């Protein structure tokens, strides 16, 4: 079959690879009908996440049709049109039973790596390096889905492919940031990053009752898209002092909840970007935590900061003093998607949540390398490139 493969830093190609097979009795094979780029793929592409091998198939946010199931699959059958969570959960360990699916204790066949890196085992993720289990990614014609009864969700009638697609990752990730960040009616919420996840976090905050939501980015087209489709306020950080702007908009308090949806390759204006860039290149820090620092400083005393952006290791100049003395709550996680996907599909079906507008560029799988080039450099206003392997 055809698949989009990582070949080295900033190098992708479309290759013929063997078809996937059912390896465990609870597996299914899914024919991928749409698969989208995600900002976290850029960390793999840029070589910031080690443990990639030349030839690895990337991609983790997808929908498709089940074409084959193992003998112990009971909830799905061939022909089901499904959205698959990007995080693999077994559904029966303590973490999965408590809806902390990205902490699944049985879905990563290489647990020793994350165990040593982070002091704990985390779930497997499709197309996200051998540290996360070495599972093939979704930018392919077919994909193997382990523990399919727990990880695939039937798409309701009337929900389009492009709406359902983002229920795989961007929408539940954003929802989790707002919900676990503790957003409640009357809150002021600030979201750093107007990519797909940031926009979904902003929309989730509004649906959870936030009185004001303010999204922050630098790209005019993304700010305009957020204002238009999410309906929240926006700030262009290249034209103002974000912390001062947030104070002025919140009676001097700062936001109640700050959601960081940027990750390890954060940009900024000024010397901070240069400093972190040099330290990252010298491997004196793995990640650039620029937006996290700003969120902690901007947050109101006693407020909450949620880290949705992907980080891999150590950072420098972390404002622990501000965190401690301001009495902040800091949380983070890869998405616990299985907890949110069913209700998000319901909201999408009812029209409460719109997602398909994120798909700014729909392409064939053969155009994968071009899609990532556009996505990485935000060319032509690209927010998400979506690949349709069978188009």
């Amino acid at each position, binding site marked *: 079959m055809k698949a989009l493969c990582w070949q080295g830093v900033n190098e992708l190609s479309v290759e013929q690879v063997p078809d996937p097979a059912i390896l465990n*009795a609870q597996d299914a094979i899914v024919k991928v009908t749409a698969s989208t780029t995600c900002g976290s793929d850029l960390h793999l592409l840029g070589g910031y996440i080690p443990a990639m*091998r030349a030839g690895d*198939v990337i991609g983790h946010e997808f929908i498709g049709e089940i074409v084959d199931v193992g003998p112990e699959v009971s909830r799905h059958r061939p022909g089901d049109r499904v959205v698959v969570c990007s995080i693999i959960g*077994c559904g029966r360990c303590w973490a999965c039973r408590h809806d902390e699916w990205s902490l699944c204790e049985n879905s990563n*066949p290489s647990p*020793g790596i994350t165990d040593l890196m982070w002091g704990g*085992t985390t779930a497997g993720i499709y197309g996200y390096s051998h540290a996360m289990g070495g599972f093939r990614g979704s930018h392919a014609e077919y994909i193997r889905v382990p523990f399919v009864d727990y990880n695939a969700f039937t798409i309701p009638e009337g929900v389009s492919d492009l709406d359902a697609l983002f229920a795989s990752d961007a929408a539940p990730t954003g929802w989790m940031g707002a919900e676990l960040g503790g957003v409640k009616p009357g809150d002021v919420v600030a979201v750093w990053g107007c990519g797909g996840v940031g926009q979904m976090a902003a929309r989730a905050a509004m649906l959870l009752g936030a009185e004001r939501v303010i999204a922050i980015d630098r790209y005019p087209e993304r700010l305009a898209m957020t204002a238009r489709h999410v309906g929240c306020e926006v700030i262009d950080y290249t034209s103002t002092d974000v912390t001062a702007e947030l104070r002025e908009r919140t009676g001097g308090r700062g936001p109640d909840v700050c959601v960081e949806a940027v990750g390890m390759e954060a940009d900024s204006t000024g010397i901070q970007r240069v400093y972190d860039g040099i330290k990252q290149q010298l491997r004196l820090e793995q990640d650039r935590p620029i937006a996290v620092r700003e969120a902690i400083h901007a947050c109101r005393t006693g407020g909450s900061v949620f880290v949705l952006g992907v980080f891999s290791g150590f950072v420098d100049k972390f404002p622990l003093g501000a965190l401690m003395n301001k009495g902040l709550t800091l949380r983070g996680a890869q998405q616990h998607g299985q907890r949110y996907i069913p209700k998000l599909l319901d909201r999408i079906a009812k029209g409460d949540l719109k997602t398909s507008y994120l798909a700014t560029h729909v392409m064939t799988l053969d155009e994968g390398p071009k899609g990532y080039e556009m996505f990485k450099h935000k060319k032509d206003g690209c927010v998400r490139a979506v690949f349709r392997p069978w188009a």
Partner: protein
Amino acid sequence: MKRLVAGAAALAAAGLGMARWAASRGRVPGAAKDPLESSRWLGITINRPPDEVAPGGHLPEPLGRMDAEVRMNRAPGDRGTELYARPRAQRPGTLARLRGGEDPRTEIRTALRETKSLLETGDVLRSDEEMETTRPTLPGKVLDMALGRAAEGGRL
């Protein structure tokens, strides 16, 4: 950029030198080596009650066939069962391990993880790495060495 790298390397080397000197003068304690490293129990928590982990006192298969001491107790709260194991055999020395001698603790780590997965899910998940799509590269060789130990390594 080269000058920057050289500067950083020189700074790191000077720092290491200072640290070694200070340690030799007894001013900085060295990192403590775990005196019980080779005899500590390796433990895992299984989301099942004790009578399902070892029904009738029979150990689950991956552990049952190993030459290991095993103990278990109910985990606090709703967490199920804490299952512990450690090898009866002595851990081979560093030289013996370099000559290919297996460390029995690594086998026990794997057995504990497989036991947990079998009891909780009925299966042990296999990786897609069995369906190879990759090609050999030098960085890939380094990764292969790490992955070769990934199922049996870690903090467990």
